[in-house]
């Protein structure tokens, strides 16, 4: 037994140890690393074995294959085309029946497309409105309702229409701007759709120092002090603004739905 044979034997021993190791580690549920290590041993052993076999045990041999050269077979080509043409001529002896056959096939193809219609509801105007309506109160994800003096200057909160926590179309970010900033604020409060108008991610970051709402996905930035106009990034239009009002008992409410569709653009949007 020479050195090379011993090396291959060593590789096979590694694999055997790995298999036994896997049975043990799996049986004892030793976890990802130990079970994985055993599998690595199994296959590393096989890998080294196969390499050793290929290099040291097999003697080098060379074979030469000849390729078919297609243009040589001119006769067979002609026979193929002839056989095909013959079949076509037979099949299409009745011209009008052939045309009718094509029509029937085509119509079935069309009919087979119809079940696609069951895959989802028609969009109708689903993307044009959200669950916000005049008088609906603002509710946070933890269920608490927003009162007029809940949010500090520079603060922000994610809110939903009361009873619709988590609704993607209606998610809204509520920000209190410092005095003298922004237009038509409700004592400094402004609310914008939280769905980015670029690719639909939640606009989850608010930097109060320059009133920027920033989307963490593609870094679109919107100006909370200026109707959420696009400041930077790939977004192509501003975040729709939710009109706000305050109830007599101090709760912040929507004064209506968003004036424009929320979220990423689509063909039917103008």
């Amino acid at each position: 037994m020479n050195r090379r044979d011993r090396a291959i034997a060593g590789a096979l021993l590694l694999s055997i140890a790995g298999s036994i190791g896997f049975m043990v580690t799996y049986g004892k549920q030793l976890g990802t690393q130990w079970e994985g290590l055993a599998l690595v041993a199994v296959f590393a052993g096989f890998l080294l074995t196969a390499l050793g076999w290929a290099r040291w045990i097999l003697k080098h041999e060379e074979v030469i294959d000849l390729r078919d050269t297609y243009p040589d077979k001119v006769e067979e080509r002609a026979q193929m085309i002839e056989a095909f043409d013959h079949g076509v001529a037979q099949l299409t002896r009745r011209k009008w029946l052939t045309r009718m056959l094509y029509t029937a096939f085509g119509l079935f193809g069309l009919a087979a497309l119809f079940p696609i219609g069951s895959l989802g509801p028609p969009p109708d105007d689903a993307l044009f409105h959200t669950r916000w309506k005049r008088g609906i109160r603002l509710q946070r994800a933890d269920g608490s309702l927003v009162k007029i003096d809940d949010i500090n200057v520079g603060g922000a909160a994610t809110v939903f229409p009361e009873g619709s926590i988590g609704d993607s179309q209606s998610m809204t970010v509520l920000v209190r701007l410092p005095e003298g900033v922004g237009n038509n604020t409700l004592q400094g409060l402004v609310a914008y759709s939280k769905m980015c108008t670029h690719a639909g991610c939640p606009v989850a970051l608010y930097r109060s120092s320059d009133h920027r709402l920033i989307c963490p996905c593609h870094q679109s930035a919107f100006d909370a002090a200026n109707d959420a106009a696009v400041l930077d990034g790939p977004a192509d239009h501003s975040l729709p603004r939710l009109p706000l009002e305050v109830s007599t008992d101090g709760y912040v409410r929507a004064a209506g739905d968003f004036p424009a569709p929320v979220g990423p653009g689509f063909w039917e949007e103008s």
Partner: protein
Amino acid sequence: MIRRLLLWSDDRFGVATFLHHALKKAFPDHWSFMLGEINLYAFIVLVATGTFLAFWFVPGHANVVYEGPYAFLRGQRMSEAYDSVLHISFEVNAGLLIRQIHHWAANIFVAGIVVHMGRIFFTGSFRRPRELNWIIGVLLLFAGMFEGFTGYSMPDDLMSGIGLRIAVSILQSIPFIGTWATFFVTGGVWPTEILIQRLFFTHVFIMPALIALGITVHLMILWRQKHAQFPGPRRTEENVIGSPMFPHYTAKTLALLFGVIAVCCALGAFVQINPVWLWGPYQTWRAISPAQPDWFIGWLEGALRISPHWAIHFPGHMIPSPFWPGVVLPFGLMILLFAYPFVEAKLRGDAAEHNLLNRPRDVPARTGFGVAFTIFMLTLFLAGSDDVQARFFHLPIDDMVLGYRLLCFFGPLLGFWIGYNVAAGLKARDGTHEAERVRLKRTPEGGYEEEPVA
């Protein structure tokens, strides 16, 4: 035993002629000819580990309260899908190991295709008669990326939900049909109750079946056309010289199979990938920063980040800006790759059959184009993590975006120039070394004379 099986088969099906040639089939001895097999073997690992995972994964949206061993999420509401992935990760014996092997194998599968494609491209292996196999290869690349994305999207963790939302927004951006397509694919207004179910079926049945079909046809065509080969002594357009399929090549390819499995297992065991429990369940209003997709979707992510906002408005209609980087770019690239063999044949006026390969230096323009293409894709890929780089280098994100936009444009131009000139330079230098091949003959007088060899 197997010998008797061979004889038994020959009695019934007459396999002797085919198998005789198959066993002796010539495989050219060059390491780069085995790159494609990495993908085949990664695919086998994917099917094996994916089957294991499918026994536990629940493709459901229904809300459950997590009660498993991972303390940080206990008591949280989440979908059945996310709950089942946590169950696989923490409670199923070897579940996390298999999940990580599966994810790593997916990354290797796509990476292997890219490297294999590079070999095919730079050696001109896509030329006639192999154009169709090139096209199938491109389709397999895109199928692999899509399959990887669906897999990434199924666990319904925060990262996968955000990625899926972006994909749906891209679908929605298509003119005329985008909104309808979105509603038909997802089943309604985001987030829908049916989407994971559909992703699951796509991921475990439709795409694997299509990929398996693609691989089969790819290999059948390869078998029929036989390997291309690099030029060398006695190698011609009409033959292929190499070691026999059995046993030499079989031993080598088995080594590769075990190597791929061993690497997948080692990565799965020791290198954490996609720790979904850290992200938490997908909730529509939550996001995470920084967030990056799997590497093979990185170029699309980068394109979304740096493409200008070119929304086009018509009366009552619009084409939103994600349409350009999200739809036009990937399909444009696909068409470019499909068309390349035919365009090159046209431009070079070379429609002949080629079984002898080029070296990258032999065709400088092709090499230049390949380098330019690679740089373009790399630029997009790097732009996909520009926020992380901006933080790391303390640069404003706008400057990063501008830089990547410029690099997208000038990088490929520079790449073409460099690729072209390096190849042309090497080719020119080769020329000076290239002596005519001669046979030396000793004359009876004791002198030598040269005789040219064809």
